[in-house]
């Protein structure tokens, strides 16, 4: 594995619509792209026994997460004819309604972009050591678990 190639997917705090717009705009020079697929995760104000989730606090085991993401990235580029792939995940406290995950794939035709995006989201949720602590309005918490 080439250490230099490992990209940092983590950002501190929420992913803003302006950041996403900027990322989309950067692709207008790549005129061999015909389709872009994006997935965004947003923090839900879930209810548990009358209490509401105010935010999720994300932590990670960064070195493993980045190495695993690198592995996923290589596998996805091997499997699909993609022009581009971008993944960003929040760390720290992300409020309900804010965006905590942004996956963005591009290819000449729609199908590889869509299929790759879906597969990245599935693998990221299953394989990356990231933990979400759901903080309720009354300052209690519970640990999120992906199904």
């Amino acid at each position, binding site marked *: 594995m080439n250490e230099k190639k490992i990209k940092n997917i983590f950002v501190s705090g929420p992913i803003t619509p302006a950041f996403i717009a900027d990322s989309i705009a950067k692709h207008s020079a790549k005129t061999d792209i015909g389709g872009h697929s994006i997935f965004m995760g947003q923090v839900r104000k879930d209810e548990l026994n009358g209490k509401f989730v105010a935010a999720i606090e994300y932590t990670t085991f960064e070195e493993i997460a980045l190495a695993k993401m690198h592995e996923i990235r290589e596998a996805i580029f091997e499997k699909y004819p993609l022009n581009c792939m971008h993944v960003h995940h929040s760390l720290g406290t992300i409020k309900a309604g804010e965006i905590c995950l942004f996956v963005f794939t591009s290819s000449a035709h729609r199908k590889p972009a869509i299929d790759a995006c879906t597969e990245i989201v599935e693998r990221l949720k299953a394989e990356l050591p990231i933990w979400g602590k759901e903080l309720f309005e009354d300052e209690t918490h519970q640990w999120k678990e*992906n199904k």
Partner: protein
Amino acid sequence: MEIEIISFGKIAEFMANRRLTVDGIETTAQLKDLLEKEFPALADIKYKLAVNKTIIQETAELKSGDIVAFMPPFSGG
């Protein structure tokens, strides 16, 4: 031998990072048994282990200086 224990998520709430000096512990399975006795809450969690920053699927041999990470179910995204 000496093992460094690091923990994440809800495991970190009851089992803080620590250095353990252990005798008669040669595998991750033995280490799990030892810690599940000390921290009964650990036995209720479907956690994964990483040894020196690599996730392991099966029991692994341990050597002095190893870093063992205890990771509860992932919930990124």
